């Protein structure tokens, strides 16, 4: 994938920038310019506004990948999941910081900013979101101070509404 192609989607990949239909309020990720949900979808043209996902969600389904996608060979076996976000959209991404035996449908996870893969001879590094179990769900729970620090470290913590 060319650098330009990856770069132009930085707002989505780095910050979970989606879009919301001002007509029916459905949230989409990645952002869409037309709302698939509205009965008269032409009315939504020009009325899709930026919307930032919080990054919180739960595992809807998962697999443990042993035959890697291109650029992921060094990571096998890895957990890949469909994550249903609290705002509605489903995302595809790796679940990290977890033993493969711990993954399950319904597991609460939170998006985090990580290196995805290196590409080609130039070793261009692609960054984006991966998911991990939420700190507050881990037992035994970490002290509150560290929990806040962990949340602040995610690029997407608790923003919710329209993005800049």
């Amino acid at each position, binding site marked *: 994938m060319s650098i330009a192609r990856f770069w132009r989607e930085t707002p989505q990949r780095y910050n979970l920038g989606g879009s919301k239909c001002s007509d029916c309020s459905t949230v989409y990720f*990645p952002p869409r310019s037309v709302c698939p949900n509205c009965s008269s979808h032409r009315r939504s043209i020009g009325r899709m506004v930026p919307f930032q996902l919080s990054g919180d969600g739960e595992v809807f389904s*998962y*697999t443990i*990948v*042993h*035959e890697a996608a*291109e650029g992921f060979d060094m990571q096998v076996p890895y957990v890949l999941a469909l994550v249903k976000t609290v705002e509605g959209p489903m995302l595809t991404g*790796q679940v990290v910081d977890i033993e493969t035996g711990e993954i399950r449908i319904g597991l609460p996870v939170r998006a985090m900013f990580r290196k995805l*893969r290196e590409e080609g001879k130039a070793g261009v590094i692609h960054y984006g979101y991966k998911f991990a179990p939420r700190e507050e769900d881990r037992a035994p729970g970490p002290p509150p101070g560290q929990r806040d620090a962990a949340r602040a470290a995610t690029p997407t913590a608790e923003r919710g509404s329209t993005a800049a």
Partner: protein
Amino acid sequence: MRDVAILGAGMTRFGELWDRSFREIGIEAGLGAMVDARVSSAQLDGIYFGNMAAGSLIEQEHIAPLILDYAGLGSRHLPAIRVEGGGASGALALHEGFLAVASGLYDIVVVGGAEKMTDVTDERGSDIASATADHEWEVVFGATLPSLWGMIARRHMHEFGTKREEFAQVSVHDHEMGSKNPNAHYRNRITLPQVLGAGPVAEPLGMLDCAPLSDGAAAVVLGPLEIARKYTDTPIRIAASQVATDSMAVQHRREITTVDATVESAQRAFRLARRAPSDVQVAEIHDAYSIAALVSLEDLGFVPKGKGGPEFASGRFAHGGAGPTVNTSGGLKSQGRPFGAVGIAQVVELVRQLRGEAKDRQVSGAQLGLAHDLGGTGATSVVHLLERVN
């Protein structure tokens, strides 16, 4: 619109055809179909050619005129059109050829499909095929085709109680069928413990749940039904040719355990042909990953949603079962998976079944057949209903 018939069918062996080029296999299938149809090149009005990724796989685009040229027909300057829809490319090409003949614009067309997967490594071939999923929002995040089907499988197990052994049975079934098909990539029988014990690819799917990457080509000749008997004693009527689509990415589907494109294409086909799933005796369905066969059987209307696993394991889709008999060719798993050729090869098998020429694979009394081909994880579904004209 006029009725369209299949006048002839041909295909190459599927497998690792290292000694044969893309154009060679394309020509062998096309000329085979023309000889079978007793059609001369002077009668040909054009070709449609299904192909997924020749540009990436053999660094050759613009392949439809290339095939026509090397088939010795270049000087006739016929229309030659490539059609692409991922793994459904062949079936989509058949849809286009059907429309051309049904409209009356052309009389005799050849519809072919070919893919040369083994000029690149297995890893590269898989990466190229994964581009039929959503590259930017699935593949870049670590998804592969088997991993997306692995997540569909996991959710199917969660929602319906489908068992690992039930979809493993699909591969056992396919290899049993394929063992009788001289064109199949893999003709060995396999057992349930072998499928369950094979190396993992994307859990719960293992190596033997996944169709291979194959080379191969297949072709059929189409013409108007009203003149079909000039060419063949057993014309096969295309009773319906329907295409439906859905979101590219699994994450955007209404449900991940239902492929809506399959449901839509099948319902439209049955409605148009005034038939029901219970009228079908023989079906070639998309089984690139074992779980896909169960999902397809449900979505085509052969079994209720969620019942694919136990129904398949009961043997109803095998020879002698309640039917329809499924994947007598061996399916994608055993006959092989040269992406752009798959949809045509399914139809070649149905033509043989409906003509009564399928030898020890024959389903007795086959009158109506269904072919179902998927692109990617289900963004494109193509359903054809074929019937024997008595």
